[in-house]
């Protein structure tokens, strides 16, 4: 095909890219579909589509989930607004890039011994805390030790359970010594609790002062209300285009959206899905709808009747019309799950496992095989699990009726749902935040002896593979192992994954971002303040 050029169309596509509506892949395929040659399209992409980010301005971000009772203690970071703030005023050893790969933050490089038991991280030289003090190995070690040991009150102790020791090799090098090999350790370092704080002389950390090594420095701060920040000149990474930033807690979804519409803020997190179509009509607002690894799961106790029969479990998986749920409950802001807990944007996601679809007839025949016709089960849920959670279960019950299954939706109280219902009731609905790697997710909730093995599923082959894959540094081999595990979870496991929910947030048109958005947290992996810029 000869290279035809269509300058008008190309210019329009380039404009879409600049607005952040098109990623590279979409741009290329649209341009090629329009008869523009590959070489041409790709040169347009690099030369034309991307105006370089500009510096300047004060960025105001309205965030949900902020509490008066939040603190600077990284071990108790919990509310979403603190996670968003943490990625702005503090740094981590590694970070998840906008393309969902692992990239450097305060560690410039890392390597492992062949058994994946010892991991050495080199800290970037010249990185400083906001008070000008250089970041050294001591700070990193103290920051990690904050989450280790018996007295630690950190919610991240489980994450570092396998770490036997952390040693200082020189001023800018630390080595993590693990009890068992873990090829994912650099990924774990992106966890939002593991922020780098300045070390005290006794080996503890000074988290109270709110000092960090992040791209922005706090100038004024009130928990649960707002935070003012200015650019940290000693920031070691890229970005930090805004001169100043203000991060404002706007818990009420309506207040958040109104603030965006009236120009009180430049961007907001978490939109109300029910009013999404109304907001789309506003010409000044851009909505970002980003597939994430956050999942809805429905665990069934595999050691309890009727779920102890794999045919019953699979019948329940087949009796759900996921597309219908995504359309009616998530308003199109989710992607269907395939009953294994690895989202497409996670590493090692197997692309070639067929998507499970709604098939009430097959479900019926499976029930017949199990001798469980006329199956009736209770499904526990609370409204707080997900916006529209109870409606979703009622809709599922309607789907299941066609397969001859009677699902009785039990509405539980919001308060204490995760302490009184989850892990206690044999069939319930759960929302999971995104986890960085399959190993983290599987070890947390699918391993036979995990505290949170929410489905009581104990498959020997799965657990054997999980152990083997954990320390496997050969990427190809590892991918094959995870594929087999996913297949096992899908066809034998006790957890229905109806969908992975998207992150849906919005910004004023004058705010720009790169072609990709990280899927680890809302607003570009919670790094909007340092990655975005004003046009």
């Amino acid at each position: 095909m000869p290279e035809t050029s269509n300058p008008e169309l190309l210019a329009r596509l380039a404009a879409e890219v600049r607005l952040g509506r098109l990623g590279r892949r979409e741009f290329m395929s649209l341009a090629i579909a329009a008869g523009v040659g590959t070489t041409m399209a790709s040169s347009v992409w690099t030369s034309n589509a991307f105006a370089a980010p500009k510096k300047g301005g004060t960025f105001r971000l309205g965030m949900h989930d902020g509490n008066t009772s939040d603190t600077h203690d990284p071990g108790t970071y919990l509310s979403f607004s603190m996670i968003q703030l943490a990625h702005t005023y503090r740094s981590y050893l590694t970070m998840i890039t906008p393309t969902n790969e692992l990239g450097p933050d305060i560690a410039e490089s890392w390597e492992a011994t062949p058994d994946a038991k010892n991991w050495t991280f080199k800290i970037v030289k010249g990185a400083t805390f906001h008070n000008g003090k250089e970041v050294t190995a001591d700070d990193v070690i103290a920051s990690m030790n904050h989450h280790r040991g018996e007295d630690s009150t950190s919610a991240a102790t489980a994450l570092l359970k396998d770490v036997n020791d952390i040693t200082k090799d020189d001023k800018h090098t630390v080595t993590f010594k693990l009890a068992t090999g873990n090829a994912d350790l650099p990924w774990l370092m992106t966890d939002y609790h593991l922020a780098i704080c300045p070390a005290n002389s006794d080996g503890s950390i000074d988290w109270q002062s709110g000092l960090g090594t992040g791209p922005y420095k706090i100038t004024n701060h009130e928990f649960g209300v707002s935070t003012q920040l200015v650019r940290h000149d000693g920031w070691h990474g890229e970005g930090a285009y805004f001169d100043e930033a203000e991060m404002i807690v706007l818990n009420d979804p309506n207040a958040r959206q109104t603030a965006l519409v009236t120009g009180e803020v430049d961007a907001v997190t978490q939109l109300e899905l029910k009013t999404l179509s109304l907001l789309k009509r506003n010409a000044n607002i851009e909505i970002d709808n980003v597939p994430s690894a956050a999942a809805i799961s429905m665990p069934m106790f595999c050691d309890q009747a009727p779920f102890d029969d794999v045919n019953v479990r699979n019948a329940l998986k087949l009796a759900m019309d996921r597309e219908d749920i995504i359309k009616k409950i998530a308003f199109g802001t989710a992607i269907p799950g395939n009953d294994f807990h690895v989202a497409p944007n996670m590493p090692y996601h197997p692309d070639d496992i067929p998507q499970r679809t709604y098939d009430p007839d097959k479900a019926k025949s499976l029930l017949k095989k199990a001798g469980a016709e006329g199956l009736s089960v209770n499904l526990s849920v609370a409204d707080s699990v997900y916006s529209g959670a109870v409606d979703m279960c009622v809709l599922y019950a309607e789907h299941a009726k066609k397969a001859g299954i009677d699902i009785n939706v039990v509405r539980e109280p919001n308060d204490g749902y995760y302490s009184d219902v989850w892990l206690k009731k044999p069939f319930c609905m759960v929302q999971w935040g995104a986890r960085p790697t399959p190993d983290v997710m599987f070890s947390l909730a699918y391993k036979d002896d995990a505290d949170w093995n929410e489905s009581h599923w104990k498959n020997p082959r799965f657990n054997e593979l999980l152990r083997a894959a954990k320390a496997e540094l050969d990427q190809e081999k590892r991918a094959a192992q995870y594929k087999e595990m996913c297949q096992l979870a899908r066809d034998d496991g006790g957890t229905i994954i109806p969908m992975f929910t998207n992150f849906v947030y919005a910004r004023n048109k004058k705010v720009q971002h790169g072609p990709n958005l990280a899927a680890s947290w809302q607003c570009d992996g919670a790094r909007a303040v340092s990655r975005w810029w004003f046009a």
Partner: protein
Amino acid sequence: MSDVVSIVLKRLGLGLITLFVISVIIFLAVEMLPGDIAQAVLGQGATEENVAALRKQLGLDQPAPIRYLDWLAGAVVGDFGVSLVTQSPVGEVIGPRFANTLFLACYAAAIAVPVAIILGVIVALLRNTLFDRVANVMALTSISSPEFFLGYVLILYLSVKTGMFPSIAKLSPDMTFFELLNRTFLPALTMVLVVVAHMMRMTRAAIINLLSSPYIEMARLKGVPAWRVIIKHALPNAWAPIINVVALNLAYLITGVVLVEVVFVYPGIGQLLVDSVTKRDFTVVQACCLIFAATFILLNLAADVLAIITNPRLRYKK
């Protein structure tokens, strides 16, 4: 006047007992909530060991009565302890928030009380006319709508559509007083709409009630103009019920504004209380509730004292 003093002293004593009883009830209520502060602070991600470690650190491994008595021992000498979550003194946590709430309440009251009483007098004067009917219907409509709904309606028309006022009441320390009034106008107006009807209708009812008494008829017969009858003769005798209802509404302006705070993102004490209950932060919950209770007690006391002062029959012994 010694009567007034003895009433005040008696009522203050009773108030203290009330506060004590309330503190016990609040403690029991917080204890009865499912989950505890350690779980709430650490969230879903915590292990049993974490939770146990934090409980120990916060002294939650002590039995409940001992924890309460510990708190009480501090409270009687004015030390309300530290917030269990942030470890900063309760006064520091609550102080600025309570100041914000008081400011908003005063702002709303400064508009609502004169408007309500003047409107009440006017509708009493023009009773059963079209004006009376319209004023009553509007007042009753605003009092029957939930606050958050009123807030949203005001935001829609006065902020989103016309851009006259900001939609969120975000405060910053370098604001001028005028900016502050402008920023907080919509929440104040919402609260005005909620409380005006009650006070206006009570004023109207009290005055109309008096207008049928013989001494008013006498005044009319001697040719006193209608407005003078109301201001000079009826109103002084109507103060007692009006003051009572004003006091009740003032207390509401301080204690009942959580929804308004949420809708307008105003950093007041209501939001703090809700956050603290979610986190089971007992000391802060306790202090907030005691402030609310004390507000009610003091405002009611003030209302009674004022009622006595404005009523000569109660002021002098026979």
